[in-house]
């Protein structure tokens, strides 16, 4: 959406203001309480997605690794917040340098004040905080790929470096006035920046770190599905802020994003369960929540650009494609993407990016563009290119970061750690006591 706002200004005058602060008064938009209220609560909603993700993932691993998942989510919340305030925000949203990265104008939140962000009605520091939650959740999504076998230190290092080199770049390209934005890519709330990005990185890490001991034969079932359901509920709840908050205002575009989010998630959850019902005779709880999350990932880039009815198609597509991927293709390929971070977020995100190219419509959002079904095949091509370009960037950079960590600290815990469980071996804690 931010990209869209920018478009409406034709030239990226926004970043000029920091160079020519004398021009500031030109941009002296005032803070709108309604928009600010909405973006504040949206920020809180995206926040709650992070523990939500912890419970979603954590309920699915074995008891002995539950805390390790929660801990990774919580620590990401910690250090990525700091990374974002000190460096990341500036890299993402600082004055554009060659379309590739942001300048250092916002280092340590310099110049990030409580005044209205140009062309919006919300304080600049609120925009920073809102975007910051995205920078936290993206590396947290990757946790699903190497769950139950990563060294905690490696996780921290990887997230910090990857967050800086990969996430911050992509955020800049798409939302911060970078080249993808200039190319006309539509990504309302982070299909490319968040989901494709995390999904692809997840795939690389899952391959590099290798399968869990005992996979696939001797791996137990999800240890606590209700916690996974709780997590999915918090994710869905928070996703309203994620998507509708990306309008940066409480207006019709936000409400449209809200509605499409609800519809895509509902559809995808239903369809996934339906497929299981037909194929296995039994719809499952895990299937429903998996489908819902796939639908949410897929609608993310499209939320503010497509109509509610088209969100149904996006939801159906997400369920079918991710289902096939996760239950048929993945087992064939044989890698152990523990919690399907790639299968859901990566695949769902790619489908969402393409689907935006299919169903986007300027009737829904005049700052957007028309897609394939609205007479503009061009957009599909742009979306496709943007997806390809980002993947081409993510793969090698992620690979190098992970390899470097693997060669130095080592990505994977020792076999005995894995056997005992990461909770005890990495954190000296157990999730549940047996007796008292």
């Amino acid at each position, binding site marked *: 959406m931010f990209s869209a706002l920018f478009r409406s200004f034709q030239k990226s005058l926004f970043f000029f203001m920091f160079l020519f602060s004398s021009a500031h008064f030109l941009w002296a938009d005032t803070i709108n309480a309604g928009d600010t209220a909405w973006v504040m609560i949206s920020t809180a909603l995206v926040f709650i997605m992070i523990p939500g993700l912890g419970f979603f993932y954590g309920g699915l691993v074995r008891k002995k690794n539950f805390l390790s998942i929660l801990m990774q989510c919580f620590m990401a919340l910690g250090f990525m917040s700091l990374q974002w305030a000190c460096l990341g925000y500036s890299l993402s949203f600082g004055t554009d340098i060659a379309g590739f990265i942001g300048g250092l104008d916002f280092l340590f939140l310099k110049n990030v004040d409580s005044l209205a962000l140009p062309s919006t009605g919300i304080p600049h520091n609120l925009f920073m905080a809102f975007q910051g939650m995205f920078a936290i959740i993206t590396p947290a999504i990757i946790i699903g790929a190497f769950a139950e076998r990563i060294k905690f230190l490696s996780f921290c290092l990887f997230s910090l470096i990857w967050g800086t080199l990969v996430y911050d770049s992509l955020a800049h390209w798409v939302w911060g006035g970078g080249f993808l934005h200039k190319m006309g890519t539509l990504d309302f709330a982070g299909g490319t920046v968040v989901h494709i990005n995390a999904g692809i990185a997840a795939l690389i890490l899952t391959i590099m770190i290798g399968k869990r001991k005992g996979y*696939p034969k001797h791996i137990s079932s*999800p240890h606590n599905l209700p916690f996974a359901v709780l997590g999915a509920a918090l994710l869905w709840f928070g996703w309203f802020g994620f998507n509708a908050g990306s309008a940066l205002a409480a207006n019709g575009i936000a409400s449209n994003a809200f509605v499409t989010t609800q519809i895509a998630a509902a559809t995808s959850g239903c369809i996934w369960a339906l497929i*299981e019902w037909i194929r296995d005779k039994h719809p*499952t709880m895990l299937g429903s929540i*998996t489908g819902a999350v796939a639908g949410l990932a897929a609608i993310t880039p499209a939320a503010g650009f497509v109509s509610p009815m088209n969100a149904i198609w996006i939801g159906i597509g997400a369920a079918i494609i991710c289902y096939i991927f*996760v239950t048929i293709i993945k087992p064939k390929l044989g890698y152990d993407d523990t919690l399907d971070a790639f299968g859901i977020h990566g695949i769902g995100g790619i489908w969402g990016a393409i689907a935006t190219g299919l169903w986007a419509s300027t009737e829904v959002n005049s700052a957007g563009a028309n897609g394939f079904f609205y007479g503009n095949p061009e957009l599909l091509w742009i979306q496709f290119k943007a997806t390809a370009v980002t993947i081409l960037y993510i793969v090698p950079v992620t690979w190098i970061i992970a390899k470097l960590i693997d060669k130095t600290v080592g990505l994977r815990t020792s076999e005995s750690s894995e056997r005992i469980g990461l909770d005890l071996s990495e954190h000296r804690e157990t999730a549940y006591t047996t007796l008292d």
Partner: protein
Amino acid sequence: MKFVVAIIQPDRLHDVLDELENRDIHLVTVTQVLGRGRQKGVSQVYRSHVETGNLLRKIKIEVAITDDFLPNVLEALKVGAQTSNIGDGKIFVFELDQCIRIRTGEEGPMAIGS
């Protein structure tokens, strides 16, 4: 003295306890266990992961009794636990050497009963 261990279906517990009570056997110890037997469990599917589910939830009941109560206990267990479906479980009987009531220090048959 005998020590009877029975593995039964979880939903038969209340009936077994009732039957034991009817036969004047009030003291039992119950444990939650998992059993692998002839009964084939429902195979669970979690995304791509299939769990053959051959470890099924069962209940273990332990009763220490004097020899003369043995037939009663066996009867109670059979009546209470039998559904004639696979998975009904087993009864194991052991010789019990000694039995002490911690509270009083009583030993043997004195200690075993209620």
